[in-house]
């Protein structure tokens, strides 16, 4: 179920209080930005901020909450030969495949993560025990726009922009001392997931440190544009 709210007079205080909430909008993201969304949408029980008021005047980097995007963990002893959700598993650890709206990250010998990032409805995983839906277990954030490398320099010592690695690629390690799974799509789009419990404080710290490079909250529309650009130019599969 979805319903779009073009509320022009959304009150301050975050997405939880903007516009009429549909009866099924029961789900809550771990992240609440202290900013006014101009447009929100209720989707699968989540209230999703599509655009913030300041985005029109803000040319800098944005932090977008994608915690509502569905994600699955898939584990199998012979994962390399499997096709979870009919997706080819990247050959090497750290490789990422982009297949339409689905992204598959090869984490290790036995494990991949699958993210649904497109506009189409998320697929239903086949009834295999190897799949675990982990949407609710993670906070998912996208760093979008110019100066993303400068923002991330404040947050992690990981080499997220190693020019020797072909984008998109996966890095697993600490950001703000929190274990994260990070996919670098391009220099203006990096997506990371982390344990949901850290989400609120992590986003607060990221915005605080990233403010030195102009980081501000952003809506999902900005992410969609960046994802479309990045996947148009990145190697897929």
């Amino acid at each position, binding site marked *: 179920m979805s319903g779009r709210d073009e509320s022009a007079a959304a009150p301050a205080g975050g997405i939880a209080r903007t516009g009429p909430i549909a*009866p099924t909008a029961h789900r809550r993201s771990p992240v609440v930005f202290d900013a006014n969304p101009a447009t929100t949408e209720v989707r699968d029980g989540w209230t999703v901020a599509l655009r913030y008021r300041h985005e029109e005047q803000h040319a800098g980097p944005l932090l977008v909450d994608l915690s509502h995007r569905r994600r699955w963990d898939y584990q199998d002893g012979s994962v390399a030969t499997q096709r979870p959700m009919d997706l080819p598993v990247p050959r090497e650890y750290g490789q990422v495949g982009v297949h339409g709206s689905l992204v598959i990250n090869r984490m290790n010998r036995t*494990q991949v993560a699958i993210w649904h990032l497109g506009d189409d409805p998320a697929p239903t995983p086949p009834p295999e025990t190897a799949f675990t839906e982990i949407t*609710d277990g*993670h906070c998912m954030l996208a760093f979008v726009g110019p100066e993303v490398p400068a923002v991330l320099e404040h947050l992690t010592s990981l080499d997220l922009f190693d020019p020797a690695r072909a984008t998109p690629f996966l890095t697993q390690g600490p950001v703000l001392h929190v274990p994260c799974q990070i996919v670098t799509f391009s220099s203006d789009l990096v997506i990371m997931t982390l344990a*949901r419990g850290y989400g609120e404080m*992590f986003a607060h710290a990221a915005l605080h440190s990233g403010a030195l490079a102009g980081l501000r909250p952003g809506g999902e529309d900005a992410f969609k544009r960046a994802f479309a650009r990045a996947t148009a130019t990145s190697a897929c599969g």
Partner: protein
Amino acid sequence: MTAHRPGAVAAAADGSRPASPHRLPCGSTCRVDLSRPLSFDFLGRPMTGFAGDTVASALYANGVRIFSRSLKYHRPRGLYSIEGESATTYMAIDGVPNECAETTELRAGMSVRAQNVRGDPKTDRFGFIGAFERLMPAGFYYRLGHRPYSLWPLFQNGLRRMAGTGVLDPRREYRPGVRAERYLNVDVAVVGGGTAGMEAALAAAERGLRVCVFERRPWMGGHHAWRVREFEGKPLWQRASELEARVRATENVRVLTRSPVTGVWGENLVTGFTVGGDDDPFRECHWECRARTVVVAAGCMDRPLVFNHNDRPGVMQPGAAWRLARTYGVSPGKVAVVSVGDDLGLEAAVDLTRLGVEVRAVVDSRRRGHDPALLEELYDLRIPFRSRWSASRAKGGKHVTGCDVWGMSGIGPNSYTCDLVVANAGAQPRIGVLATVKAKLGYCRHTHSYQPVELPDDVFVAGSMTGLRDPGSITESGRLAGLRAAAFCRRQGTALDARRIGRAEPAGEAGPSSPGDNCPPALSAAIEKATSTLASRPGPVAGTGIFRGQGIGRGAKAFVDLDEDGTYKNVVESAAQGFDAPELAKRFGGFGLGPGQYRVTGQNLAMIMAAMGLDSGKATVPAPTTVRPPLVPPSLATLAGPPHDVHKRTPLHDEQTARGAIFRRMGPWERARYFSEDPSCRDEILGVRRNVGLLDSSPLGKFRIFGPDALNALQRVYISDMRKARPGRCMYSAMCNDMGQLMDDGVVVKESENGYYFTTSSARAGTTVEWFRYHTRYDGWDYHLVNITDVLGSLNLAGPNARRVLERVTRDDVSNDAFPYMGVRRITVGDGVEVRCLRLGFVGELSFELHVPSSYCQYVWGLLVDAGADFGMQPIGLEAQNCLRAEKGHIIIGAESEQRVILTDIGMGWMWDRRDTASKKVGAPALRACAEQPGRMKLVGFRVDEGSGSHRGDLEAAPGAQPGGGPGDGAVIVADGEVVGYVCTTRRSETLGWRYGMALVREEHAARGAGLNIYENLGSGRKSTCSATVVAPHFYDPRGERLRA
């Protein structure tokens, strides 16, 4: 600051009059913008400097000559160095003590104060202390004032008051502003942005490598940046400026100016910090740069000349005088005597003369090796020059009024009247970075300096610190270092790839020159060419081993260390008492232990000790002392970093906040501990016992395990027979370590043929996956684990009315028949949210534990709160849960267990499947060996005897005291004057009306009915005692009827 462009002083270019009598028309090298005046005050006196000035240059330009007083003797100290090499200009700036005026850029409104001064620096009331020098020999504080020892605190405090270096007010916030930290990953980190460093950066960057240059000054160019001497038809400053422009324009070179390096750590982690300028959004930024290779091109500094009264204001190093004039446009003095030991000093003398300083004489301690062109220029300028002479005494009181020079052979003295003595003994490399990269340093008798004897494979050295002085040699050495760094990166597998910078890899660099070499032929050729070019140019110049002038002593002080007031005489005293090596003398006499560290003192101290050893027939080679980071100190606030505390919050944090929760950190989680100011949690406890309560237990570990070998893994890790786990039932079990100690407990639910769901304690959730993998690492089993702790929140609905509340939010049958104790069901609540519901009883009451998808937790919480409103349901915190479970006798790992007790000691041996040896259960062998071992500690319950408690002092108000009085958690149990155990948890039960607890005691005191004497020292003379009787540790509902209701 925007004034750091060469030639910023318009006055110099057009010859117009400078802004103050002390300002010079210094020309194109000047970094000060006279069009941008900045007001500040010194000791309350208003002064004016300019953008681009440092605090020191601005003070000097305003006629200030005494900046501070020395640490021990309170001697007047002025501008001796220019880049913070010594602490003579450490001042209190805007209330912050120990700020280096030489490196602190001037800002409008600054308030500057002298340090270590009583009154005005010119008339310091403690200025007489120097007359008592005899009472303060080297290491006097190790010997004086210790007998009788009771006097020492008085003496020590007096010393500290006398010799303090600034005062901090703990109530004040100093220098508010953003302290950032940033991380870099590069292929080549270049330390030093001189011409060698810049060439190295360019050479590496041209191969597509990512390069970062750390430069401590606001601009690049090193000592070429202020030299007007021409090289190959162009002034050095102009060449440096053009090179800087090229470097800054190179996309893959990151230039960090105002960024001193603090050290190089393991795996080439280069740390440094940037001091924020006007345009920066931070006050200081800490850098951590991980580099594949490091090029050290840190340059040289003046090596001080030790002579009588070499600390007088007006005595300064050539670099200081020269840069004061050339960089800041400030005249160092009117009439100067120059005593140097290298060609840069001679060049400074020539240049100062051209800038209008009257140089009366130039003496050089070297016998040979002078640059003939410089000697010719001195001759042309009619400046008297003497070789093998040096300054021996600065005259004057609070400022230099003259100088004596002596010949090394004893001829002299020649006396001159002057207000400036420019002196050094030569140059010494800045070896700090080399020391932190663990280079082995040795003394070079050609350059008379420390040079690397052995370098790590991934560290390269370039520039003037290798003894080179020819500008062409310096730049070529930098280029060679950059190429070698690139070759190293290539050998390590880094592609010298053109796509990194969007252009083709230089021709021929696509492949290795030979198998196994992995260095492209063109790169090898470039290295060979640079090597031969460097070899064809002038090599390292000869230095001088001279460190002091003639006639040291003779009623005057000659300082080796200006920071700690360490004199030449003190070095001799140290050696005479057996501290005859630099590392020993350094500690005994304090040489080099001041803020300047090794910079001024290091090499001279070693040379003096070596010379003294030579005199006595001992060691003759100056040995370097250890240099430790931080090479340049950042502020503590910068090291502390941004004020982030990234921890975990449960999905119900906001709801609990709204209900008045008081939170505490528990591991990574922030959890609700109380819901009132009452630490006994009386209302919360009684609410659960008599009605119903709601607890957020979301941090509880939650896991999926599946695969053909999932059961094998469970059998290995859990101590029970896990084959008994079956669908719809919770099976309680525990994990032990190899020593049989309890590590974790929780419930396991079989959900499918090869799939299980299990819970762990909150504390162990983060390590459970590794625990399984570690203990099955050799078995090759096919099973998989998913940590879903954060996927599911957990709400514990507990109390006699729990079922009635739950029935209001679900249509599923939750009656006792359909859903018995230890059952597990999937039920639907509210608008269709499916949750796992586990019927457990940790708090000893009818309980339903709802495991809810985290994003729905707030919704489900709201449902339950609404449904429980009619019953007066209240949320409860962890402390209430702790009391409730203790009443029931349920243990918490770590509270009622520890490393001295095993599973059987705490009454949980019933879980252990003793017949199973095939599974190789973790901890089973230890349990077999120790379960029947006599004399072990045992977990017991106890009931405090009524009226037995006594205490001395204000116990109720004492920290750690229990509500209601009596010893608390951790109190010891004593018998016959011996400690025989301790209290794990004790509370006064609101339900039972008496005080109970659990304790670990020696077995002989664990029998039911045994008496326990409990003692607690609460400090400050307060103690608490009581007696108790050992009882069964199930105080509440021992038959479990309530939780099965």
